[in-house]
């Protein structure tokens, strides 16, 4: 490791395609999300901050940073202050594994797909702890609902994620992307059922309608985020945006071929186009459903989604999810 490569690695981690780039991307995707949702609902969305309101998420972030930070007297001080930091750092860490600008991620190793699942679980644990440590009724109910929701979607999600890994014979995301590119095919065409299942489970993981049960505004005020304000709330919202980037990048890498050099278009551009398409899909799903109740969600996941996920794995074993021999 010469000094040059060290400096290059540091720059990559900090700027491109690392932290700064992901920060810009997080705000940009939140803007796309809000604008598209608004247009679906026949209204304008953000309009005045920057051209077309593109700076609105950044403005909201700055505004929250400047607000008063109140801690309830019953809250556990250490956990209350650390939870937002963890919540925003975890998706950012996971993003380093996903290929953004080239065929491999910044960090890639065999088994990083399992690491991704581990990060998802840690995120939900963070949500549960933030709800629990606030020690007020609305946040506790929200935290408990988040943990309960994870019990519903985690297994179908893991099965859907493992589908592309089986055909690519690799447990590394970069390996799956390489397999798709060298065989010139997208996994969505081979395993459409797995893609649909993964989209639904990731909607639940992100906490978007119809699965925004932990944060249901009309029922428990703001769920697990109720007691947070000021800088901590800013970090929570930033963490949610990072999660959106991470989820769409994951979907693109596993099922849509990842960043590919198409003709003269650099791979980062194809990555952006594909992830924007996934964000639009998630937003469309968000707009057209009502919210499920927690017991309906869990029973639906176990009764319908889990058998379908198992079916997908069985189909792969029978050769229907991989390349035709």
């Amino acid at each position, binding site marked *: 490791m010469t000094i040059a490569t060290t400096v290059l690695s540091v720059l990559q981690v900090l700027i491109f395609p690392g932290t700064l780039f992901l920060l810009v991307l997080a705000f940009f995707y939140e803007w796309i999300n809000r604008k598209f949702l608004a247009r679906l609902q*026949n209204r304008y969305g953000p309009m005045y901050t920057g051209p077309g309101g593109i700076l609105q998420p950044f403005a909201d972030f700055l505004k929250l940073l400047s607000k008063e930070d109140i801690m309830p007297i019953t809250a556990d001080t250490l956990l209350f202050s650390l939870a937002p930091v963890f919540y925003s750092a975890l998706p950012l860490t996971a993003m380093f594994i996903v290929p953004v600008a080239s065929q491999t991620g910044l960090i890639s190793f065999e088994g990083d797909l399992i690491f991704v699942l581990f990060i998802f679980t840690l995120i939900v644990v963070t949500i549960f702890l933030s709800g629990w440590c606030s020690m007020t009724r609305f946040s506790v109910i929200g935290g408990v609902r988040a943990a309960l929701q994870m019990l519903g979607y985690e297994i179908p999600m893991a099965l859907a994620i493992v589908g592309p890994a089986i055909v690519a014979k690799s447990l590394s995301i970069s390996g799956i992307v390489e397999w798709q590119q060298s065989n010139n095919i997208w996994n969505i065409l081979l395993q459409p059922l797995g893609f649909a299942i993964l989209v639904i489970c990731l909607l639940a993981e992100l906490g978007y309608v119809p699965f925004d049960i932990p944060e249901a505004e*009309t*029922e*428990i005020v703001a769920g697990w985020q109720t007691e947070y304000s000021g800088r901590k709330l800013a970090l929570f919202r930033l963490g949610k945006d990072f999660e959106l980037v991470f989820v769409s990048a994951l979907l693109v890498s596993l099922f849509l071929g990842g960043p590919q050099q198409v003709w003269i278009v650099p791979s980062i551009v194809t990555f952006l186009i594909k992830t924007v398409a996934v964000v639009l899909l998630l937003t469309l799903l968000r707009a057209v459903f*009502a919210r499920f109740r927690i017991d309906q969600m869990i029973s639906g996941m176990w009764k319908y989604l889990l058998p379908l996920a198992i079916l997908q794995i069985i189909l792969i074993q029978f050769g229907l999810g991989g390349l035709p021999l």
Partner: protein
Amino acid sequence: MGYGSTIKVPFGPQHPALKEPANFIFDVDGDIVVGIKPRIGYNHRGMEKAFELRTYLQNVYLAERICGICSDAHATAYVQGVEELLGAEVPPRAKYIRVIVAELERLHSHSLWVGVAAHEIGFDTLFMYLWRDREAVMNLLELISGNRVHYAMNTIGGVRRDIPADLIPKIKQALDFLEERTKYYLNMVKTEQTILKRTVGVGVLPPKDAVDLCAVGPTLRASGIKNDVRADDPYAAYGEIPFNVITHDQGDVFSRMLVRVEEMLESVNMTRYALDHMPAGMIRVKVPMAVPKGEAVSRVEAPRGELIHYAKSNGTTKLERYKVRSPTLGNIPAVCKTLMGGHLADVPIILAGIDPCFSCMDRMAFVDVKTSKHWVWTTQELKRHTSK
């Protein structure tokens, strides 16, 4: 928080689910509601006393402002009561115009409600669409009466404004648009799976309980009881306009939704009929300023249910006593019964299912039974207390 113990979850007076202040304290075991304690009175404004201090003509506008969404129902109930005390006969054309404005208000109120119900179950897109289409009714009412809310059409002895003939095509055009959109929403509500899952079988009110607990309006009609003041005790021109009383017999929130949406279609038809058959003639009669001694009870079918006004006059230009029983008060015991045993997640939609209007409801005096204290404060003492 040990296993088996219950948490008390407070709803209100400030809560995103409630559009107006009320307080419900739920005892929750996990996600199931096992106990409920309602507290109302946050919107108490002393209206019934205010009625006694003003002349009969000024009270028309006060009655209107008991509620924003059902303002015309309150105004109609008031003027009908006073006309009965006076023995005044309202001309037929005025009766038809009262029906038209009342039915347009019902359209406005029900479409507002379906939007709010959609918002309660997390379906913001439907909420946005419905409130956009509701603008058509508001603009129509603005054309007819000069204001989008608080139409001030009724006066003692008739109505204040006429509906000129050149306005009728515009009204019919708006009605056609509203009918098409309502049919679309009716179809959507019946087929959208997430809505069905959240409202079917939720908050069931059996017919016997509905009658015992004095439920009114769509809440009662959704439990299969055919009860509508417009049909049972016709006022204004309702005796001459044919319409159906809509009932459904499941008694759950979905039935209430269906009753309201189908009532919207009925209102459109009634308005069309009234416009076509409106007789020519005067729109108001002159009435004296002093009202002879007597008592009158007038009942009106507000969008939320049966509304009762009681007036007592003593021969002067001011009322002796006035009392209002609005539909939401009648629905509160029924809704408390339906909330027990349900999920906490269903509380907002069940509460929204009765279309609560706490402004209408809170005009009665309450004594604080918990501390059994009653006290009188002068204005100065009140100001000092609030500025502490």
